[in-house]
């Protein structure tokens, strides 16, 4: 039995411990915010937070999250209030939107550890997340906006926010 916290709630999993967290989230608990884009850690569509830090859930076996806290986009905020989500709306970042949950989770993790990243630090942190619609210039701008907000209100602490979706 693997026990962990998902979006603020204690959960247990008794199935195959090699199951990637992505498929646990999508198939078992119907949290479909994390997306399947490549299955090998190449695209970031499946990004979630493991103890507040961005992780690719498609290559993270569920056994590895025992005793940990994980957060999905559904738990990032109650209703899109997180500074990153607000900045995404302000800059009208998404096109198809498929990559964007992963992009936002990556950006939120970056800003949690580095609230005022430089242009290059943003590029470095975000280059593992692919957007085939090509919204990179807007993602970059939105992160700069969110950075301003987050720098003024303090760090985002994932386990304090969010209800299960």
């Amino acid at each position, binding site marked *: 039995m693997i026990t962990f916290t998902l979006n603020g709630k204690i959960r247990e999993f008794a199935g*195959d411990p*090699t*199951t*990637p967290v992505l*498929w646990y989230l*999508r*198939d*078992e608990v*119907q*949290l*479909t*915010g*994390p*997306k*399947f*884009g*490549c*299955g*090998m850690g*190449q*695209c970031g*569509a499946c990004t979630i937070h493991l103890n507040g830090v961005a992780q690719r859930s498609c290559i993270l076996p569920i056994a590895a999250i025992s005793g940990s806290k994980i957060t*999905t*986009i*559904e738990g990032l*905020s109650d209703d*899109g209030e997180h500074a990153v*989500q607000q900045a*995404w*709306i302000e800059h*009208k970042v*998404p*096109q*198809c*939107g*498929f*990559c*964007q*949950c992963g992009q*936002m989770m990556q950006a939120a993790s970056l800003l949690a550890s580095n609230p005022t990243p430089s*242009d290059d630090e*943003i*590029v*470095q942190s*975000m*280059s*593992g*997340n*692919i*957007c*085939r*619609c*090509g*919204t*990179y*210039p*807007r*993602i*970059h701008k939105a992160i700069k906006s969110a950075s301003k907000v987050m720098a003024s209100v303090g760090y985002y602490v994932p386990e304090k926010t969010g209800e299960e*979706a």
Partner: protein
Amino acid sequence: MSKYFDLTRRNFLKSSAAVGALVLGTCFAGAAPRMMAGVLTKPSESSKEANLFVALRPDGIVEITCHRSEMGQQIRTAIAQIVADEMEASWDKVVVIQAKGDLKYGDQNTDGSRSIRYNMQRLREMGASVRHMMRQAAATRWNVSLDECSAEQHIVTHSSGKTLTYAELVSDALNITPPETDKIPLKKRSEWRYINTAMAHIDLKDIVTGKATFAADVLEPNAHIAMIIRPPVVGGKVKSFDAKAAKAIDGVIDVIEIPAPKGAPVFQPKGGIAIVAKNTWAAMKGRRALSITWDDGKNGDYNSEAFKASLLATVATPQKSVREIGDAVNTLAKANDKLVADYYAPHLAQAPMEPPCATAMYYKDRVDVWAATQNPQADMETVGSMVGMAKEKINVHVTLLGGGFGRKSKPDFSAEAAYISMKTGHAIRVQWTREDDIQHAFYHAVSAQHIEASFDKNGAIDAYLHRTAFSPLASTFIQDTTRPLSAELRLGFTDNPINTPNMKLENGAAPAKTRVGWMRSVSNVFHAFAIQSFIAEAAHKAGRDQKDYLLETIGPDRIVDVTEEKADYDNYGGDKAVYPLDISRLRHVIEKAAEMSGWGRKLPKGRGLGIAAHRSFLTYVATVVEVEVSNSGDLKIIKSWASIDAGTVVNTDTVKNQVQGGSIYGLTAAISEGITFDKGRVQQSNFHDYRVPRMSDCPLEIEVEVVQSDAAPAGVGEPPTPVYAPALCNAIFAACGKRIRQLPIGDQLRT
């Protein structure tokens, strides 16, 4: 499935028409859509029913039907903007209903950048009819003349000041006959409040909160997951397979063979072996445990390097003429100074972020499908023939698409899901992996081109010969054909805008040894690459500024009619009186992009600016790219600028986002290694070896100017793409003197 069923029309009918909503639609009388003269108080689901586009419910909520697929181009928002604007609906009362596949909507193929072009007029008329009927209903209720009643934001106001809301007028309007199309007063442009603005798209909030429903998010708790191993070679099939180990895996339910397709590929599944499992992880494990031997068939010899050599050999010799002005061949034969260049571009995979996915449930008398499809009517057709049912019996629900780019116009994945559901009697979700997507796409054609030109004493092109050869998309529909249709050649080849007294355009035959399909902008991508690179090469040869030379090469402002030279050219199906090839518009976007970029400014060593311009899908785009190339050959794109003239546009911010994204999509052609084949097998498999642009490859700023134009609406999704690779390569030349004629750039800058 509650999460998804909210989007279906069944719900729309129940929640609206059944309780006395005003429902309006258009129907098609021949090619020209006309307003349906009649209000449907009791819409049925029979095929004679009008196309439901707008329903005004008694509570005042307006339900607008979107019959095109949403894949990031914000068509759902655009359709709502158009209808709501003309009907003077209050935006917070607008709900968009996603249409199922149904022939009654007319064309639903969301491809070819034509959703707005095909529909703007009839959607405006629809909205205006409702506004008119609201005024009429109020006038009747008040017993005053229509002229004294005006409608604004869901309220009709009489000149005396009294008001009635749309909700209060719904039941009255049910008794009013809608006006004839030509009697409906449409708004003046100056009166538009939603059209031609940058309003936020309606799905934005759902997307940023993770609630948006893509194909794999359709919640069907009973669905089994299927994953399929398909023949690695097109035309190949299963020789034998051993399912024992796969079946032993916990969670694997069944192993099913999918029959090999017959005849031309069309959109048929490739066949192969499906693993059916309780969940995705079990399906993935099962698939690894399966062992299959293949019969490769006649394409087992496909090798990209050999094919490239054969294409280049084809364009080295005279080929079939497509368009001819004057006598290019003799002029070139006599010239003592020519510029000759060969260009090559590999296959590409569309690689939408969301891999293909569909859920299907087979019943005795129908199949329900939920799919990320660009063309639900093609799903009806393809699924129908896969399971032996009439297409009318296939209910195709369209989810949001996580990108399409042409891949999802081919619903092989829906047919797979339906077939497995038929065989298992269970709801099935077919989930493609990225490897499946990269290795079983309908690929962008591989191409080779040969261009030669001679010059007059001023350095202007006085004869131009251009040969193109590429694996034709036509082969997907006509078995073994080696010739493209004119509809492929017209994509940036036949409609070459160069102003020269002697021009010859030729096309060489080429087989397709894989499945070829549409990819964003299709053959415009490689044709614009060659033409716009060549013009820059000619500018350099003449010692001229690239932008000035480009402007001179397209010649004076005029309308070019390529059909005058007996070329087979359909102008994207657009009336040439409405959508002429207008050089003044091409010139304008070139000048604008150049001006935005500060063209001509002094640049530090290692930097360069490049420009390219192209008309496609009836829209004009010019792009300038600024790059830096280091001594060791590292390429960095500093910034780019684009000007787009798509005629009338519905959402200015969407257009900007499409130009930014379309530019980056175009960058794929330059930096991706492309798709290569050996022994008929695709050699790439996932994003580690099929490179697509990442943030680190892209400029952080792509400045876009949307030309404000009253011209008829043209395409937006595709036209920004073709110009990017040539503008980039022209910039690279300006920066370091290295000319890229073969894509991808690869390590050509390092030598």
